[in-house]
C-alpha cells in the first residue's frame, strides 16, 4: 500500500515537472525567439480561453459553440450506432444478411467520412443535415464492423446447447447473440465516438456558421492564433470527456467482462 502511494506521488511530481517544463518552453519560445510573431504565450491563451467562454467568439460564446458541436455529434452518433449495431448483429448471425450487405459495406467502409464532405454538401446543402449525415457515417462504419465480429464470435457450443433446450431462433438471437456481442459492440462505440468527434470538427472547419471546428477555422482566416489554440484546447477537453464517459459506461454495462482495457 505504502509502495503504491509512493508511486502515485512520484508520478504526480513527474507530471507536474514535465507539463511545467513544456509550458515554460512555450513561454520562453514566444518571448525570446522569432516564434513570438506567430504564437501567443500560454498565459494569453488560457486567459482568452476563459474570456471566450464568458464573452463571445463570432456570434456566441465558446460554450455555445461547444454545445452546437455536441448536439450534432450526439444526434448523428445515436442514429449511426443504432443502424450500425442492428445491421452488424444481423450480418454476424445470418449468412444471408452478410451475403447481401457485406460487399456494399466493404465498399463504403474504407472511404473516410471526411471524403464524404463535398458530396454531402451537394446533397444536403450547408445546413445541419450534411453534418449529421457525416457523423452518422463515421459512427455507422465502426459499430457495424464490431457488432458483426461480436455476433460471429459467439461460442457455438452455447448456441447448440440452447437449441437442444428448445430455444427458437428468435430467442437465440435476443438472449444469446446480443448479450454475447455487447463487449465487442462497446469497443466499436469507443472507436466510433472519437471518429465522430473528429468528423464533426472537420465538417465544421469546411462549412459552418458555428461549432468548435468553425472557431478554429475562423481563427485561421483572421490570423488569430489565440482563438485557434483556445479552440483546440476545448476540442481536446470534449474529446477526452466523451471517451471517458464511454469507457465508464462500458465498465458499468460490461461488468462481467474484465478485459482490462
Amino acid at each position, binding site marked *: 500500500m505504502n509502495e503504491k502511494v509512493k508511486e502515485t506521488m512520484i*508520478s504526480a511530481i513527474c507530471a507536474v515537472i514535465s*507539463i511545467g517544463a513544456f509550458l515554460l518552453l512555450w513561454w520562453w519560445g514566444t518571448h525570446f525567439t522569432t516564434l513570438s510573431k506567430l504564437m501567443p504565450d500560454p498565459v494569453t491563451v488560457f486567459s482568452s480561453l476563459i474570456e471566450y467562454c464568458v464573452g463571445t467568439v463570432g456570434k456566441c460564446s465558446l460554450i455555445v459553440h461547444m454545445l452546437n458541436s455536441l448536439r450534432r455529434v450526439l444526434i448523428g452518433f445515436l442514429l449511426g450506432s443504432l443502424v450500425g449495431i442492428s445491421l452488424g448483429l444481423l450480418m454476424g448471425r445470418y449468412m444471408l444478411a452478410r451475403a447481401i*450487405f457485406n460487399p456494399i459495406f466493404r465498399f463504403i467502409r474504407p472511404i473516410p467520412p471526411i471524403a464524404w464532405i463535398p458530396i454531402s454538401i451537394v446533397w444536403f446543402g450547408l445546413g445541419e443535415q450534411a453534418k449529421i449525415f457525416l457523423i452518422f457515417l463515421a459512427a455507422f462504419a465502426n459499430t457495424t464492423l464490431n457488432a458483426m465480429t461480436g455476433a460471429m464470435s459467439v461460442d457455438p457450443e452455447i448456441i447448440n446447447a440452447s437449441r437442444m433446450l428448445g430455444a427458437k431462433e428468435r430467442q437465440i438471437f435476443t438472449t444469446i447473440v446480443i448479450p454475447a456481442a455487447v463487449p465487442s459492440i462497446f469497443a466499436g462505440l469507443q472507436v466510433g465516438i472519437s471518429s465522430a468527434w473528429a468528423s464533426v470538427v472537420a465538417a465544421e472547419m469546411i462549412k459552418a456558421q458555428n461549432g468548435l471546428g468553425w472557431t478554429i477555422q475562423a481563427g*485561421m482566416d483572421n490570423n488569430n492564433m489565440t482563438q*485557434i489554440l483556445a479552440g483546440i484546447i476545448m476540442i*481536446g477537453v470534449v*474529446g*477526452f470527456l466523451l471517451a471517458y464517459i464511454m469507457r465508464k459506461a462500458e465498465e458499468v454495462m460490461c461488468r462481467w467482462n474484465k478485459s482490462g482495457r
Partner: protein
Amino acid sequence: MKKKKKKKKKFNKYMIISCCSVLAVIGIWYFCINILHLKQETVFPGPFTVAKTFVQKMTSKVPDGATLPTHLLESLKVVLLGYSLGVLFGVPAGILMAWSKWVDRFMRPLFDLIRPVPGLAWIPMFILLFGIGIMPKAAVIFLSTSVACIVNSYTGIRQTKQEHLWVGDVFGFSNRQKLFRIAIPTALPMIFTGLRVAMGAAWMASVAAELLASSAGLGYMIQQGRYASKASLVFVGMIMIGLVGLIFDAILHWLEIKVAKGMNAE
C-alpha cells in the same frame, strides 16, 4: 469428402447472392437516376457517368488543372512523408515509454494532453505556422500517425508476460536483450495493428488537409468537383480515396503476416 463438397456448394450459393446484391445496387442506382430521373445527374450521377468520368479524368485536366494520377501522386507523396516520419518517431517512443519507467513518468502526462485532440484539429494552426505547402500536411499526418503508433506499441510492450522476462533473467539476459528478444517480439502484432490504424488516420488527415487548403491532391480534386458542380468527379475522387486506403491496408496486412509470422497474427 461429401461434407466438404456440400460446404463448398453453400459457399458458392452465398457468393452468387453477394454478386446479385452488388448488381442490384448498381441496377437500382441506374434505374433511379437514369430512368426515373429522381435526382439530376449534377447532384447524384448515374453509375455510367461515374465510370465515364473516371476514364476521362485519367487524361483530362478539367476543371482542376491536373489529371487523376497527378493528384494521386501528390497525395501519396505527402502521406508517405508524414507517415514514415511518424512511424519512425512513434514506434520507438511508444516502446521506450512502455519499457522505461522514468521516460513513462515524464512523457505520459504530455502525451495524454495531446492524445484527445483529433489530428485534424491541428490543421489551421499548422497552416498559419507553415503556410499551405507540403509542410502543414506532413506535420498533421506526422502527428496523427505517431499518436496511433505510440498507443499501440505501448500496449504491445506492456502485454509482455512477467514469466517470460523471468526466464530471460534466468538465462542472464541484459536489459537490452530482454527488450529486443522478448518484449519487442511480443509486441509485434500490436505494433502492426498500430501501423494499420495509423495509416487510416494518416490518409484521412491528408484528405482533410487537402479539402481545407491545397492546390493539388485527391481532397483538392473533390473540393473542386463540388465547386464546379461535377458530382461525378466527386464520386470518382471518393472511390479513389477508398481504394487507395484499402490497398495500403492490404499491403500492411501482408507485411504483418510475413514479419510477425507465428506471433498470433491472424
